């Protein structure tokens, strides 16, 4: 007995407490919190702005001299991919080509003395959200901060301007 026993043994502690019930409860609590626990994903945001005057715009539209930077996105069911176009140009296949066209257009705006040149994303409702975010991400990387979304067809028909 002497020296060989553990702390908490009968020999050391004359007042014996039954810890089994407590251990059971702690086990249950532990399992409960372990099951309900989830690790937080590192999240962030991408700022976008909706037009302030949608639906109430009464004035004359601004005379457009430069071509609007509008990225069309359409889902191709047969090809299972997204078709991207800028303005009335042909299909753009790579991200590089897409950004080259957009940068070229922004340079035209800069040359004309314009400081604001929003990139308008005009996608059909069946395009994957990831693809839309990807285009936004590419624009943000090129420091194009003003990204806008085109209003859907039904809203434009109900009155009010797109921008």
């Amino acid at each position, binding site marked *: 007995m002497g020296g060989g026993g553990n702390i908490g043994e009968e020999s050391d502690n004359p007042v014996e407490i039954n810890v089994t019930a407590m251990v059971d409860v702690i086990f249950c609590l532990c399992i409960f919190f372990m099951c309900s626990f989830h690790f937080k994903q590192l999240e962030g945001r991408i700022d976008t702005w*909706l*037009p302030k005057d949608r639906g109430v715009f009464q004035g004359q539209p601004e005379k457009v001299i430069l071509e609007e930077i509008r990225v069309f996105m359409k889902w191709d069911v047969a090809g299972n991919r997204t078709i991207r176009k800028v303005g009335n140009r042909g299909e753009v296949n790579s991200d590089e080509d897409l950004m080259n066209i957009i940068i070229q257009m922004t340079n035209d705006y800069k040359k004309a003395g314009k400081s604001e040149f929003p990139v308008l994303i005009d996608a059909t409702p069946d*395009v994957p959200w990831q693809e839309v975010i990807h285009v936004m991400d590419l624009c943000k990387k090129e420091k194009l901060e003003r990204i806008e979304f085109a209003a859907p067809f039904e809203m434009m028909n109900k009155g009010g301007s797109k921008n």
Partner: protein
Amino acid sequence: MSRRHKAKETTHQNPNLIPMIDIMFLLLLFFMLGADMGQRELEEVMLPKASSMKEDKENKEKDKNKLTINVYHRYEVKCPSYGDGPGNSVKVCRDDAHWRTGIKGKDYSEPEKLGGYLKKEADATRGQDPKNPQVSELKVQIRADQSAPYGLAQRAMNTCAKAGIYKVEVGAARPADDKKKKG
């Protein structure tokens, strides 16, 4: 033989439970502190990846004027066209009935219901800009799943625009390879 058997019966094995209880207490404390018991504003959403996203710092004062709209695939629906596809691609579930638009755990999939709620929330911060008294200063974050069709996010954005909310941001997650680069 019988004496040895008797000796075996009388020996009491007392395992020392104290270190185990200590560890379990620590584990319990860790999980209790890490558990999110509040009303969950953020649903479990597989956010689209974007390396240009700005990290969201938690700021409760700032968050007072912020609302989060979650667009997520219904947990109870098992859908073969939802989830990760081959390689880095994602599958897209285009069944409207499989998706839910929620705010603070409540279902606002119906545009009228969402519009009514957003209008009510936006009214509190409306009229701060004298030039545009109809617009609201409420900030809305749209956390749509990467597999969601754009139409659902577009619907949420439209409803915001109709309610006079123009400060809209979209939720995104940092890609895994970016995390490695940043160390």
